[in-house]
């Protein structure tokens, strides 16, 4: 192979690599679930948490069929994950893999609890009591399913 072909070859390899590496995802919400079908009220295969890596198997509208590192497969909504992309720009900066925003924040820097605590210390007149109560007002999937069934909504439309 002539030396002048080497840059072209390297470019094509990087392009392929970009395409391949784009098929992996990181969970970006605190917790979510892999489901048996691409529906919210399908049964849970496995619970996942922020930072977990998933490999894409298939896609159906806004749902991704993915596989965990343990080999378990299931469906997750697109809004719960972000793609982990290979970034050619980062290559030249001796950082071969570009980080996702979630990874950056999980590297400890970000607007986090420490910043909230600092804000609270400087603004003692601002109460978080009801904010914490709101957080505890979580609606379970079973409660939501019962509400939908009763109202004949969503996946339960037309079900008497």
């Amino acid at each position, binding site marked *: *192979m*002539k030396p002048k*072909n080497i840059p072209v*070859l390297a470019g*094509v*390899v990087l392009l*392929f*690599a970009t395409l*391949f*590496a784009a098929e*992996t995802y990181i969970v*970006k*919400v*605190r917790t*979510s679930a892999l489901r048996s079908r691409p529906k*919210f009220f399908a049964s849970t295969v496995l619970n996942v948490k*922020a*930072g977990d*890596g998933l*490999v894409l198997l298939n896609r159906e509208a*806004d749902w991704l069929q993915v596989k965990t*590192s343990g080999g378990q497969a299931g469906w997750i*909504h697109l*809004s719960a994950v972000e793609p*982990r992309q290979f970034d050619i720009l*980062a290559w030249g900066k001796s950082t071969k893999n570009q*980080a996702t*925003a979630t*990874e*950056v*924040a*999980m*590297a*400890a*820097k*970000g*607007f*986090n609890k*420490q*910043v909230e605590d*600092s*804000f609270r210390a400087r603004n003692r*007149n*601002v109460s*978080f009591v*009801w*904010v914490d109560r*709101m*957080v505890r*007002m*979580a*609606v379970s999937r079973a409660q*939501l399913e019962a*509400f939908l069934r*009763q*109202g*004949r*909504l*969503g996946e339960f*439309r037309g079900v008497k």
Partner: protein
Amino acid sequence: MTARRVPALVLTVFLLSLLVMSCSLLQEGQKYLTEGNIKKAGKTAAVVRNTFADITEEEEYYIGRSVAALILSRYKVYNDPALNSYVNLLGNTVAAYSDRPEIYGGYRFLVLNSAEVNALAAPGGFVFITRGLLRQCRDEEMLAAVLAHEVGHVAAKHGLRSIKKARLVEAFKLLGHEVAKKYTPQELGKLTEVFEGALGDIVGSLIERGYDRKYEYEADALSVKFALATGYHPGGLSDFLKNLAAQEGQKQGGGWFKTHPPAKDRLDRVESRIGKVRTLPVRDSIRLNRFKKYIKG
């Protein structure tokens, strides 16, 4: 390059790509957040983050908590557990069929004890609705439409978009340069000032200035979309806007009248959008009955 060398080059590219892919797959078999990856993440942080879209889900959650606390310093809560539970179920129902059903800490809804007609959506899914607005709703379709409008603001990140660009640049600069488990007191002081500025930008848009009109029209369009996806008749939003339009000449003051475009203008756009829907869901009396059970006068 001679023609006979082309197959050899293609084969070489293919084999090298397989090699790179196998490295990628090997990595997929591990947890991403290894010590090494975390270091890389820190090093590339400044390169990665530029705009509101680069604010992470967790950061949005913490921004949203503080925006919610600031909203609650101006409004009193209506502490009715049954009503708040109903509003949470209804809000989470439309959120489940929205473009952004999954959010870092989940969606939360709370009724405010105010006669003002208002609803507010903080980033991170903290949504507030006043008793004054609840009184404007005659059925579940109307209330679902208002909550879907607020979920639309969260889904489209309108709150985060109202943070000034220069403030974000400053924040990412402070956040992005090195990896440390804890901030130094000096770093934390600077960052908290930027954080307070960002909260001020968002609260100012939510309560004082209102969002840009295009965001309100977008939230109306999303309300129609999410209502249809859930199975609600999207006419709930036009019914609600008709109510507001009838009062606009009479009522002055705050809330939605101050921070939203004229209801008549919004109504025309919403009705035009609904007019294009081929099959509309049926308004089920079972939903009206449960609405009346929780919303009493």
